[in-house]
């Protein structure tokens, strides 16, 4: 039985600048949620946005709740709010 699953993490825009990386491979325990993944990443990249409501998570290009569970091979992305504008 797997003791860890592998996900590909992508950062964009302000979160990319804070993490200092565009893409990274990450191993997390089976059953990890988006929130768990982000917590791991926050420990690796202390500059990463602390205010959770300024961040959305996506799994395989679909916006997902923080409680969504990631699976082996998933592409996980953390993105800031889009520009909006008038």
């Amino acid at each position, binding site marked *: 039985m797997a003791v860890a699953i592998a996900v590909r993490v992508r950062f964009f825009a*302000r979160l990319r600048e*804070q993490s200092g990386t565009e893409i990274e491979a990450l191993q997390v325990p089976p059953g990890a949620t988006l929130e768990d993944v982000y917590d791991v990443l926050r420990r690796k990249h202390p500059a990463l946005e602390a205010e959770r409501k300024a961040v959305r998570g*996506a799994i395989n290009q679909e916006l997902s709740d923080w409680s969504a569970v990631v699976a082996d091979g998933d592409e996980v992305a953390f993105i800031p*709010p*889009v*520009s*909006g*504008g008038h």
Partner: protein
Amino acid sequence: MRYDVTTGPIDAHELEAVVTHPGAGAICTFSGIVRDNSRGQSVTHLDYEAYAEMAVPQMRKIGDEIKQRWPAARVAMAHRTGKLEIGEVSVVVSVSCPHRHEAFEACRWGIDRLKESVPIWKKEHAADGTYWIEGDEAKPATG
């Protein structure tokens, strides 16, 4: 239907050619242009960054929703990424319909949805610094 995220210049005519057909009496095309000012500050240039693998499907979803609301509509949209100078076109949404009022409404609905839901971010290089524009907030860039 056509949905592009591209680093090169956007040709609005090309998008209009995609939506034109013999039953279309009206085309409404919106172009977003890089303005020389924002938040009361002068702007020198912008950088747009996209999550392209998510942005293109999201654009397609908006196009599909337009076709649900305005069944005769045809839609094309493109967003540019990378460094853009003042006066350059950042985004184009073109919609054709049989009649003009529905073309205006569908096009406006499309650009409004695009701006609020497609994962593309704007970094503003302005007189007072460099900022990521996130909704109504401008947050200092660090990259």
